[in-house]
């Protein structure tokens, strides 16, 4: 069973050293969650690591009148971004933060409006207030800026990219996000914990399974129950099916971004097959009908023949793409993210593994039995991320095949393991990377606070780093090779 996090109440001056010792152990800062309720204003820092599965929480109580936390920005880049979000959402000041620019806050927010504080009320009407975001201006002969978005051509989520360019070479790219900030975390508050699944499924549509599973694991952790063996197997199958359809979609989209439309069309056929498979298995194309708090149920299992057909069609697409020398030329050496940068930024999932970081929650926080070794690439370029997806697709098919053979019943329940507690954590390796949810329940079993985190939050800054020395017309391809979620990031 995944361990329940060990919580330690800390005071401000201890936090920095404790965080440093966690990071020295190779653990990462997985989540920072602020809470304001009858227990006062407090911030929870969750550090995770593994294998073996390690989860440590530090809880820091703040003064409501002058909320402040000591900054961890010097220890962890991710922490610096969590702290900027705390500042925007809660007016918590990270003391000593080196670069306290807005992260979540947009220009139309009133000066004293902190949406996560109780009583903040609904979103005020959109008006232009305050100063525009202070983009760093790059100066020099021939340097110019290209602003792109937030509205893009085609079906793309909103994000603003500010390029500073010389000729065609990108010197700096700043991504401004949170245009689809829907206040998802507040939507959970007050719901019966079982009902929260419906919202978790909709945090990022392409990660419906990963987010709902992370949410269920978190609620189960808080209730002190654990999914039985059958349930865990079924969940792993649906999770891998989600990885399959997304990875093949990315493989096709990468070809499309170098104008190799034929390979994309073939990939979309494979993706559609898997979506229909998903519909048969879960009752929903995006796998929404399978995972619930304390139980899992499938309608049918994918048959060996269906999986073989998908595998064969997928290999055809890969051969078509990698058999085209122009496609290979476009992929190799484009938007390289070095291993050191990937580690320093704290990237997760496909992006991290394509840069040689063997980071996988299926290994660090496994919820299903059976050995699994993550594949990694060395290159860190678009090609590495392409090949990483191809290899993960193959590995996922093997997992689905193996687990389908072990399934005895199409529905699974849960077992009581320990006394319920107020909070629980769920960690799932979604197709983009580790999805982490932390849920606190009140005495009636309703959600008091849900903190949901998509790997995109950690990976977005890596795109900017990988783009230096990339040329402008290669940006769409580079962006697609990361394929990060805007909705999952913005919440």
């Amino acid at each position, binding site marked *: 069973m995944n361990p329940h996090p060990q919580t330690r109440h800390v005071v401000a001056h201890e936090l920095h050293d404790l965080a440093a010792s966690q990071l020295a152990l190779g653990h990462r800062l997985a989540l920072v969650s602020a809470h304001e309720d009858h227990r006062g204003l407090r911030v929870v820092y969750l550090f995770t690591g593994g294998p073996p599965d390690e989860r440590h929480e530090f809880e820091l109580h703040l003064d409501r009148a002058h909320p402040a936390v000591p900054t961890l920005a010097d220890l962890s880049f991710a922490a610096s971004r969590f702290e900027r979000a705390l500042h925007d959402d809660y007016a918590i000041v990270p003391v000593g933060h080196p670069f306290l620019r807005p992260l979540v806050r947009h220009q139309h927010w009133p000066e004293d409006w902190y949406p996560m504080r109780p009583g903040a009320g609904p979103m005020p009407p959109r008006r232009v207030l305050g100063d525009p975001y202070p983009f760093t201006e790059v100066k020099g002969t021939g340097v110019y800026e290209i*602003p*792109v978005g937030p509205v893009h051509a085609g079906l793309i989520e909103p994000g603003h990219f500010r390029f500073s360019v010389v000729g*065609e070479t990108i010197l700096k790219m700043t991504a401004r996000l949170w245009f689809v900030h829907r206040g998802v975390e507040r939507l959970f508050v007050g719901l019966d914990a079982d009902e929260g699944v419906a919202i978790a499924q909709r945090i990022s549509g392409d990660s419906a399974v990963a987010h709902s599973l992370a949410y269920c694991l978190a609620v189960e952790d808080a209730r002190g129950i654990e999914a039985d063996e059958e349930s865990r197997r079924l969940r792993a199958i649906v999770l891998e099916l989600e990885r399959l359809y997304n990875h093949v979609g990315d493989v096709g989209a990468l070809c499309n971004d170098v104008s190799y439309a034929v390979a994309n069309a073939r990939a979309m056929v494979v993706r559609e097959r898997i979506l229909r498979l998903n519909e048969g298995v879960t009752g929903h194309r995006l796998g929404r009908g399978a995972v619930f708090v304390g139980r899992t149920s499938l309608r049918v299992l994918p048959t060996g023949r269906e999986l073989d057909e998908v595998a064969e069609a997928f290999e055809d697409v890969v051969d078509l793409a990698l058999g085209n020398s*122009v496609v290979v030329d*476009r992929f190799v050496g484009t938007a390289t993210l070095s291993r050191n940068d990937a580690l320093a930024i704290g990237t997760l999932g496909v992006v991290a593994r394509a840069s040689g970081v063997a980071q996988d929650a299926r290994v660090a926080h496994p919820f299903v039995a059976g050995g699994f070794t993550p594949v990694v690439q060395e290159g860190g370029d678009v090609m590495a991320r392409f090949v990483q997806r191809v290899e993960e697709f193959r590995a996922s098919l093997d997992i689905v095949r193996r687990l389908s053979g072990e399934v005895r019943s199409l529905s699974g329940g849960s077992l009581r393991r320990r006394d319920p507690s107020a909070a629980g954590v769920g960690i799932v390796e979604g197709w983009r990377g580790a999805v982490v949810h932390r849920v606190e329940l009140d005495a009636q079993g309703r959600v008091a606070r849900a903190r949901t985190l998509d790997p995109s939050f950690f990976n977005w800054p890596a795109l900017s780093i990988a783009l230096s020395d990339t040329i402008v*017309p*290669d*940006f769409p391809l580079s962006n697609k090779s990361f394929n990060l979620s805007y909705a999952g990031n913005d919440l």
Partner: protein
Amino acid sequence: MNRVALSVCTSVLQLALVGVGSLVLLGLMAKVKARAEGRVGSPVVQPLRDIRKLLTKERLHARHSSVVLALAPMVITASAAVAVGISPIIGTHPVLGQSADIFVIVYLLLTGSVASALAGLDPATAFGGMGASRAMTIGALAEPALLVAVIALSVQAGTSNLPGIVSSTASHPAWVFGPVHLFALGALLIVVLAETGRIPVDNPATHLELTMVHEAMVLEYAGPELALVTLGEAMRLGLLFSLVANLFLPWGVATGDSLGALAIACAALVAKTTTLALVVALIEVRSAKLRLFRLPELLAGGFVLSVLAVVMGLVIR
């Protein structure tokens, strides 16, 4: 029939045929690509319908844009129309055919390119300037290759007048299979892909602004002006396709002075340009878009082929 009337008839037919036909060729290429991707695709006449739709729309200009933006579509279309009118497309005696020198045609095309680039710069958007800069870079590499490739043919024919080259090639069929024509054909195919913005140089179907070349320049156009720009660009494509077809397969082009020969010439032109469009569409299906910084290599290859064609022309003489 008198020569003047026939010349006028030739030019008018050329304009009508290229004006409508080049849009159909665009539709045909889109159809081939759609079929290769397993889609039904829109009808072959869709570009014509789009033009009709655009003509009914309102004229809109970007704020801060000047008269350049309003004039460019006319310059683009007019320069293409003049080039189409005087080139040997269905007959070797169009109006002003004696002026249809290769330099005149190249500079008419260049006038259109410069107008597009200025239209891209005029509204001062980042995309327009980016597209203009890329288009000028590609043009600077492609147009010399076009010029030199046709000069190679003129060395052999002894004239730089296009109708003259076509009629002397028609009377010396053996030239077509000689090294001069083969090298020049290779060069011209590369130039045509570049000048008409096809894959592997540019992707006319993309929605990704940052990768665009030609489309980025005309992003600010809407309504009738977009229709005019589209028509002008299509006519450039029609002209280049027809020139390649007639310079290398001159048969069917009306050299005499009968209306019947013109009718045959129309049919021959449709057959030749349709074949060329299918070839280009297949290249587009098979290829992906080159990295922008690789384009000079491709276009330099085209230039080298055209220089080789000139050298062969001088050696063979």
